[in-house]
Structures are given as structure tokens and as C-alpha cells.
């Protein structure tokens, strides 16, 4: 085996320029894939992080039918306290859940006494909400990073449009589920930076203020956002929750709750999927590049060495050995390309990271791109390249091993 490698390596060295060119082509392919995977992956993860950690949470639970009409924030589809108690018990029994935050969501009028506009609001338990959305506090750009009773955190656009500052007094007026209108005077406690996606322009207030405005006898929750300990467990936890909550039925015998991951709630999921599909196609292109260039080189190699093949075959070399000789040559080319490509890719990723490229997503600016690549990605890409290199050598190597020695020896 060692001797087969020796012969293969020497043959690669014999046609040095061709070897370097082919290995470079493969290396460039690997480089592009790695950089693309790193950049798109970090972009994707950052945006997903922004969405889940400053707005949605990882998973949300609603009463059945709520999400379909989430745009009008229907108070009639809130959960009764008994239902809420059941859910809390379920969550507390699941160690995968790091935090959860019940919210009362409602729409209302927002008046600064001189101007009035519409507003969407979340009534929340401040500690629970901040635990569930670790990036929420960072979105509060003015005022203290807290949600206090008697205060409302208003979206940036309203603050700017109505020239409101922290400490100003405003009034919130809302219709409750029975149709009666009520208002409450609150202070502007902070200004919230907008985020792209559903709920990105909602205001926040203390849940008790929400209860008061909506004149609820008991707290009726519209949605519960969940944060998991491990984001990688998203689908597993989602499945578990679905399975557990499927058992909870309403009076009509239909499921009482619905569970959605962020993927079902944010349109960015489609962009994320698009990125995955593009990554897939770029990998496919890499495979094509490796396959075509290796096949090309190996077909040339076999053609140039027909007489040598005839010679070694005549003196008794087994067809299998001749086959391995050429397979190993293709394999080595693949390995070179993969090594060089991995090294170059890591260097470029490192540079991109050091340069701190910033980008904007929707209204969020100054997001720092921090491309990283998993060791597993390096392995997968390398294995693909090496595997395809072997596959590309298969046909020429097989042809070499099947050559008739007399024909090969006569070849000029």
C-alpha cells in the first residue's frame, strides 16, 4: 500500500504543473464553500439570534386559532387562568426550557394629548420577559433597561414621530373583550429600537397595567414565549410539547393549544431556508468542479501512461493493483486540494472576522458579521471532496486495469 502511494505521489510530481493546477482548482472550490458556509451561517445565526432573543423567543404557545388571527390581537382567544396553570406546570416539568414569559397582547390608541396613533402592546412580567429575551434590554435605547409598573416602553418610530421623551406622560386607551373602552395614563419609561419581523414594533408595559386597562377579572394570557437551554433542541422540544399538549382538548374535543417554533412565526425562516438551499447548491457545484477536474486529469494520466500500464501488466501486476494505483493518485489529488482549500478558507474566515465587517438587516444596523465554521463542516467538505475525487478516478482507473497488455504495449 505504501508503495502504491509512493508511485502515485511520484506520478503527481512528474506532472507537477498539472497537479498544482488541478489541486488549486479544487482548493478554490473548497475555499469558496467554506467562506460561504461561514459567512452565510453566521449571518443566519445572528439574525435568528436577534429574532429569537429580542422578540419571539424560541417557541411560542397560544390558544388554538390565535396565530391565524394574530394580526388583530384577538382578546377573545386568550387563555383562561386554568389553562395557563396547566401550561406552567408542563413547562416547569421540562428541564429543556430555560425560561418562559406569558404575555397579554393587545392593540390600542396611544395619545400624547396633542396627537394620537395606534399601538400594539405586550403586557409582561418584566423579569420573565427579560429572561426569555436576553437581547430585549439591549433594544431599549433610551431610559432605563427595565419595564416598571406605570411605565410604557414605546417603539422608536412612535417616540420620534410624536417627539416623545422618557418621562413624558401619555394615555393608552383600549377596548376590552366585552367591548368596553378604558384608558390609563402612563409615563414613557423607555424607547425601544425597532427590529425586523413580527412584534418588532410593539411596545411593552407591566402585565398588571395591561390587566387594569383591559379590565380583566383574572389574568388571561395571549401567548407564552419559551426560551430553551439549547437552541439545537428546538425541534425535539417542539415535538415533545406538541405531543404533551395534544392531550389537552377543549370542550369540543379539539386541541386547546397550538405550539410554534420561531420558524413558523417569522418570515426570516424562509430566508434562512434559502441560505441553506444556496449552501447546498454551492456544495453541488464543488462536487461538479472536483468531479470534472479529477476525471479530466485522470483520463489524461491513463492515456499518457498506456505503455507503462502495458508494461506492468505484462510483467504480472494484477488488475486490482493497477486500479488502486490510479485511484490513489486521484485520492491524493483530492487530499491536496482539500488541505490547501481548508487552510486558505480558515485564513480568509479569520481575516473576515478580524476585519469586523458590519451589515444591516432591516432597521438593525451595525450588526457585526462574525463568520465561524464548525470543525464538522471542515470534515464534511473535505470528505465530500476526497470521496468525489475517488469517484472521479474510478472510470479511468478501471479502464487502465482492464487494458490488454499487448494492445497497451503497441500503443504509440
Amino acid at each position, binding site marked *: 500500500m505504501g*508503495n502504491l502511494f509512493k*508511485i502515485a505521489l*511520484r*506520478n503527481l*510530481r*512528474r506532472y507537477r504543473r498539472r497537479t498544482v493546477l488541478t489541486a488549486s482548482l479544487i482548493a478554490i472550490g473548497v475555499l469558496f464553500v467554506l467562506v460561504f458556509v461561514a459567512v452565510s451561517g453566521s449571518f443566519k445565526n445572528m439574525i435568528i439570534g436577534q429574532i429569537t432573543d429580542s422578540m419571539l423567543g424560541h417557541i411560542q404557545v397560544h390558544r388554538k386559532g390565535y396565530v391565524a388571527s394574530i394580526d388583530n390581537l384577538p382578546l377573545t382567544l386568550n387563555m383562561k387562568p386554568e389553562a395557563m396553570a396547566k401550561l406552567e406546570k408542563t413547562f416547569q416539568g421540562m428541564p429543556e426550557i430555560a425560561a418562559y414569559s406569558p404575555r397579554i397582547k393587545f392593540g390600542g390608541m396611544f395619545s400624547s394629548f396633542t396627537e394620537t396613533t395606534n399601538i400594539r402592546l405586550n403586557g409582561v412580567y418584566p423579569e420573565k420577559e427579560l429572561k426569555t429575551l436576553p437581547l430585549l434590554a439591549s433594544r431599549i435605547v433610551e431610559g432605563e433597561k427595565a419595564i416598571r409598573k406605570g411605565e410604557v416602553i414605546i417603539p422608536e418610530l412612535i417616540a420620534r414621530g410624536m417627539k416623545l421623551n422618557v418621562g413624558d406622560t401619555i394615555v393608552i386607551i383600549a377596548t376590552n373583550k366585552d367591548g368596553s373602552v378604558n384608558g390609563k395614563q402612563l409615563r414613557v419609561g423607555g424607547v425601544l429600537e425597532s427590529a425586523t419581523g413580527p412584534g418588532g414594533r410593539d411596545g411593552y408595559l407591566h402585565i398588571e397595567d395591561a390587566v387594569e386597562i383591559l379590565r380583566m377579572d383574572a389574568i388571561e394570557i395571549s401567548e407564552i414565549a419559551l426560551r430553551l437551554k439549547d437552541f439545537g433542541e428546538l425541534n425535539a422540544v417542539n415535538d415533545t410539547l406538541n405531543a404533551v399538549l395534544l392531550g389537552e382538548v377543549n370542550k369540543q374535543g379539539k386541541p386547546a393549544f397550538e405550539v410554534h417554533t420561531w420558524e413558523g412565526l417569522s418570515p426570516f425562516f424562509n430566508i434562512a431556508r434559502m441560505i441553506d438551499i444556496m449552501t447546498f447548491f454551492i456544495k453541488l457545484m464543488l462536487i461538479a468542479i472536483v468531479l470534472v477536474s479529477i476525471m479530466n486529469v485522470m483520463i489524461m494520466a491513463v492515456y499518457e501512461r498506456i*505503455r*507503462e500500464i*502495458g*508494461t*506492468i*501488466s*505484462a*510483467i*504480472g*501486476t*494484477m*488488475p486490482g*493493483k493497477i486500479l488502486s494505483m490510479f485511484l490513489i493518485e486521484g485520492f491524493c489529488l483530492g487530499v491536496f486540494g482539500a488541505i490547501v482549500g481548508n487552510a486558505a478558507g480558515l485564513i480568509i474566515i479569520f481575516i473576515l472576522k478580524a476585519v469586523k465587517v458590519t451589515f444591516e438587516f432591516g432597521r438593525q444596523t451595525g450588526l457585526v458579521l462574525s463568520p465561524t465554521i464548525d470543525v464538522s463542516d471542515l470534515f464534511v467538505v473535505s470528505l465530500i471532496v476526497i470521496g468525489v475525487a475517488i469517484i472521479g478516478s474510478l472510470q479511468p482507473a478501471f479502464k487502465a486495469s482492464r487494458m490488454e*497488455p*499487448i494492445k497497451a*504495449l503497441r500503443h504509440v
Partner: protein
Amino acid sequence: MELIKAENVSKEYQVGEVAIRALNDVNFAIEPASFISFVGPSGSGKTTLLNLIGCLDKPTEGRLTVADTDVAGLDRRQGAAFRGEHIGFIFQDFNLMPVLTVYENIEYPLLMVQNVAAAEREERVRKLLDAVGMLDQKDKYPDQISGGQKQRVAVARALVTNPKLVLADEPTANLDSKTAYMIIDLMKKMRDEFKTTFIFSTHDQKIVGEAEIIYTLVDGAIAGRQVKGGNDNG
């Protein structure tokens, strides 16, 4: 017991519609440790015959046995194994592996064909390097040595496995006459030392005289058999 026995051997090549009869009803027997030459004009069938004896091709008719093995009965892998075991080849164009050194070229059949252990390999390669006078050139690559030296390496490679038979199709055609004599002499010396049968083909009348038995081929048939020192047309 003869090493090679040809009984009514014929070989036809099919070229499109036409059948070319390259060998026509050939009969001969060759004893072990012989030093034999096939001569004849171009196209007389020398290469064809050597290919048959070397198990590189199969006769269309007749029976050809080499070392008690019917050549026609070997499949591709068996043929390769048989050649690797019993036959050494010397080629007109030397056919050394350009990526291997002189030493490695001679070692190749022991390593890649026969799986001989390292210590014995080294001993046999050195012995042959010495026998062909190439010990001091052992680390050179084929493109760094002369044609005569290449053919000496090829002789060593053909002999390193201790084959019963070495076949050389026009081994001196690409060498000047002085070198050609040296190679034939070397082959004869090797025959004396290793008791290997050598069969070479040539159309060079001067070289032919070096053989002990000379078969003359004309139009695919044996036209004469000459034993050195006398004429024996039997």
C-alpha cells in the same frame, strides 16, 4: 521435459473482414536453460509468437504449453499471475517505470507482483544490480542513464524473480551494435548463472549468431532450426 511445447500452433488476426494468418501451424519444443533466437523478416510473426509464449495472447488453433500449463486456458488474472511467477520480459524500448529509480525498477516485480519480504528483496535486487554492473547507478532514474544501461536494468528486472523463462522481443533494436553484443552477452551470462531459458527475437543477422538455437520464421512458419556449430533442419 521441455519447458515450452508448441503443437500445430496458428494465430489469426481478424482485421475487419480479412483474417491475417500471422502464425501457421508452428511446432517446436524448447528445453530448460536454452538460449534461443527467433529470426525472420519483418512481419514474419516473431512478435506474435513471443506474445503467445509470454501468455499475453492466445493461439487461434493448436496447443501451446509453457511450464506444463496450457496457455489458452488462462483467464486475465490467471495470466497475470502466471507471467508474474514464471516469465520475465525484456522490451525493445526498455519500458522502465520513469518514476522509479534503477533500484526500485528492479525491485518492482518482487514488491508489486510477488510480495517478497524486505530482507530477501534487498538481497536479490543487490545481487542482480551487481550481476548487470549497475550497482553504482542504483539511485538514478531511467532518464539519467543510457539506453544500454536501461536495457541492463531491464535484464535485471526480468531476472529478479528467478523466472523459468525470459522473453525479449528485439531487445537490441534500439542499441548500437557494440552495446547490443554486450546485452546479448549479459543475457547469456545470466543464463549460465541462473539457468534461465532466454528467448529473443531479432532481425539483426550479427546478433543472431550469439544464440545457441536459431529458429527462422518466414511468413508465419518455421523455415529452419539451426543449432550452433551445426545445421539441423529437423
